[in-house]
Structures are given as structure tokens and as C-alpha cells.
């Protein structure tokens, strides 16, 4: 993988209570790359996300983002540096309107004109949201909520976008649409980490892939190469 590393994770160990869930993981995300982390349910994918976004304090190892050590920083500090997570399960503010959800995405920004500009960009990308600005987010379908969650994350103009299971629980048509959007974002040069159970879609869109199994990286490499790996085909691609 080429380009300077925007995120460099080494020896990351994370856990809850007495057990370590992630046991010394190394990850590297080049600036402008789309990287995917795939693995079965319970492999620890979401735990890694929580560690990267400052929601869970690492037990060992380091996370360096753009030259700053961010392991151990609280979530809002990590967000301020530009690492923005679109959380698993489409955690939109469901009682608030779509317009308000988007505005909250730009909460760190104190520039109304820039906020309006970003909003136009998000609404152009998700025309479905533009039609429903005054509706409460809870009234949207699952796929639309996922779009809103991604749109809200984009409102902060993230330097590293963390997408946690963007396809979770969505209808096939919506999954296609979400991955088309991720593809667009990648083409525009955004750095993205996608954590997914839907390995085939994630490997299609990503440049580089890591396969997580029981808290360790089992396989890594360029996405096309990982997709062709017989172990991956057998375990994740239903080959």
C-alpha cells in the first residue's frame, strides 16, 4: 500500500473486564485509502472501532493518527482531530429532524457558511434526505438512517471516516446503494476504514484488507489478493 500512513496502529490490545478481546493488532491506513476490516461476528471488529475512536482505552499498544498519539485520548478529542465514527446500528438522533441531525454533525464547526456548504454537499449525495429535512430521523427506514448517519459524519469533514457495519440489517438494494456511496467517497480521496461482516461488498470497495479472527489479524493484503485467498473464500465469501 502506498502513501504516507494517516493512521498507524501497533500492538493494540483492548478488552473488557478480565478478558482481552483484541490481542496485539497492527493496522496501517494510508492517506486516501479505503481499508476494510472483515471478520465474523464476535471477532472484535466493533471493539477495534471503539478503541480507535477513543471510546475504549487501550490496554497496550499505540494508535498514531497524523503524527499524534491518540490512544488514551477521550472520544471528543479524537473527534476533534478528525477521526469521525459512524457508529454501528445507525445511531442517529431519532427524535430530532434530519436537518438537526446534520447540523449536529457539524457541531465542532463554528462557521455557518461552511456548514451550509457541507450540507449542500451531503444533500446532493443523499437526495432522499433532502426531501425529508423536517421529518424526525426515527421515521426513516433503516437504509435512510444509515445514509443519515454517514451524512452526519461527513458534515464534520472527517480526515478519517470510520464506518462500523454500514450494511448491518439493510435490504440488499440499500446495501448496494451504501457501497456505491462509499465507492464515491473513496474516489473523492477520503480516507475510510470500513468494518464489515459483508466481506464481499467490503473487499470490492477497499484497496487493502485485514481479516480479524478471535482478536488477531489472520490475513492481510491488497483487497483483491485477500478476496482470492482460499481461506477467505471458504470462511467469508461462501465459496
Amino acid at each position, binding site marked *: 500500500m502506498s502513501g504516507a500512513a494517516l493512521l498507524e496502529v501497533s500492538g493494540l490490545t483492548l478488552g473488557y473486564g478480565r478478558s482481552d478481546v483484541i490481542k496485539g493488532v497492527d493496522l496501517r491506513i494510508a492517506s486516501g485509502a479505503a481499508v476494510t476490516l472483515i471478520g465474523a461476528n464476535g471477532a472484535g471488529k466493533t471493539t477495534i472501532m471503539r478503541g480507535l475512536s477513543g471510546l475504549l482505552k487501550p490496554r497496550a499498544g499505540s494508535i498514531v493518527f497524523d503524527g499524534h498519539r491518540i490512544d488514551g485520548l477521550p472520544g471528543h478529542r479524537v473527534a476533534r482531530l478528525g477521526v469521525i465514527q459512524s*457508529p454501528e446500528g445507525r*445511531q442517529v438522533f431519532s427524535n430530532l429532524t434530519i436537518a438537526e441531525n446534520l*447540523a449536529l454533525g*457539524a*457541531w465542532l464547526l463554528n462557521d455557518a457558511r461552511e456548514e451550509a456548504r457541507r450540507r449542500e454537499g451531503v444533500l446532493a449525495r443523499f437526495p432522499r434526505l433532502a426531501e425529508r429535512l423536517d421529518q424526525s430521523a426515527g421515521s426513516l427506514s433503516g437504509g435512510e438512517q444509515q445514509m443519515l448517519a454517514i451524512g452526519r459524519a461527513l458534515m464534520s469533514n472527517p480526515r478519517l471516516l470510520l464506518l462500523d457495519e454500514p450494511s448491518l440489517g439493510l435490504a440488499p438494494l440499500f446495501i448496494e446503494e451504501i457501497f456505491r456511496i462509499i465507492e464515491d467517497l473513496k474516489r473523492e480521496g477520503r480516507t475510510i476504514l470500513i468494518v464489515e461482516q459483508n466481506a464481499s461488498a467490503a473487499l470490492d470497495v477497499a484497496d487493502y484488507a485485514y481479516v480479524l479472527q478471535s482478536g488477531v489479524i489472520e490475513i492481510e493484503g491488497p483487497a483483491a489478493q485477500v478476496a482470492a485467498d482460499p481461506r477467505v473464500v471458504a470462511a467469508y465469501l461462501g465459496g
Partner: protein
Amino acid sequence: MPAFLDDFLFTYESLVHSLGVNGLLALSMYVVLAMGQLSLGQAAFMGIGAYTSALLTLNVGAPFPLVLVAVMITPALGALIIGAPTLRLSGVYLALATIGVGEMLRLLYINTPLFGGALGLSGIPRLAGIIWIYGCLAVGLIVFVFVARSRVGRAMEAMREDELAAGAIGVNLPRYKLGGLVVSAAIAGLAGALDAHVSSFISPAAYGFDAAVTILSFALLGGIGSPFGPVLGAIILTLLPEALRPLQDFRLVVNGLIIVLAVLFMPRGLLAWRMGRLAARPGGASR
């Protein structure tokens, strides 16, 4: 003052006072609930304010405005001390921790001669009155209306909706939680002091678990979409027992029933509308 108003105030003076004091307590509950936290320490903070004010007035003879400043600072310091270790707690756990603090303080008042023991302190001069109480309530309401419409208000609303997502958009959760608890303690302390200086008597029993739950029910009944909701809830729950007086012994039963029905059928409170809704102006900014 017209004679009828004079008569009215004479008859209902203490009720008018409690309406205002309870309104302030409801506001103090609002601050905490508005960011999705649950504290049952409001009665304890009220008690800190009441005892601080009574001791300052009785033993030191401090001027009343100064007393009012002190009664906001003392419970706020208390909230800082409690808040720092309990901030990592949320939901039910913060509520339990604050109940514990309330009980500790109640026992401290009962067992310390300085606080007058179980009998409490009496003979507190009636320095507060309608003007002080409703002045503070009005200032509190106005400030909260502005806060609810501000950037801070939006962060609070985001936290109430989903703490994890609020953190992900960059809201400094610990600072907001601690700040909310401190402000709420200061307001509760102020309410306690004003109450002590109109009723001229305070005792530990008034700041126990019952009071904490009553204050919580103000906000639950009124709704926390805007600062007006909890104040409305306080007004209704203060007037209701008076209105139900003809029912005699049954009035608390009916009182409870009304609260249960309200919570069941209006889970977002009587005043469900939200403050500071953003318009969906095309390309419009939000502030």
C-alpha cells in the same frame, strides 16, 4: 395592593412560596435530565443550600444577597466532589450514587449539634419573599431558554438522544455532565435557601428520598423538551394536593394515580414540544 389580593396572599402565602421554590427545583432537575443523566441528589443539594443559608444568617449574620451567592457555591462544590468520581457512572448508577450522598447528609444533619439534629433549625428570619423567589425563577427560566437555543443546548439534546453518537460528533461528554450537575446543584441550593428564609424552619426530613422523587416527578410530568415543562409539572404537582383537599385521606392516592396516568399516556410529558427546533431552510445555517 388591592384588598382582595392582600387577602389572597395572606391565605395562600405559603402555597405561593412553594410554587416558586418547586419551580426552581424543577429547573435544577431539568438541567440534569436534559442531557440524559439521572440524578436523585436534588433534594440533598437543596438541603446543603438550606443549611448553609440558615447557618450563615443565624450564626454569622451575613447579608442576604451574600448568603444567596454562598448557597449556590456550596452545593456546586459538593456536586464537583460527587461528580468527579461518579461521572463515569450514568443512568441508574448515577442516580444510586446521588441517593447515597443524600442519605449520608441526612444522617450528618441528624447527628450534628451544629445542624440542630433531628429537630432542625428554627427561627430563621424571613428574608426571602415572593419577589426574591419569583425573581430567581424568572432569571433561571430566561437563562435556560437562551441556553436551550444555543450550541450548548444542542449538545445537551444530542447527549439526551444518544450519548455515544454525541461523543462521536465531538461533544465533550465529561465536561457537559459535570457542568450540568454543578449548575443543577447551585439552583437546588438556591431553592433550598429561599425556602428556608420564607418558612423560617428547616429539618433533615425535608431533604430525604421522598423529596428527591417528588422533584424528579415535576420534570417527568411536565416533560423536558423545554425548561417550561418541568416548571409546569411543579406547578401542577404543588397545586394538585390543594385542589384535592376535599378528598381528605384519599387525596394522596388520587395524586399518585394522576401521576401514573400522566406518565403512562404522556411519556414525553405534558409539554412535549422541543425548544430551539432548527428550521429546514434550504442551505440555511442553524444558528
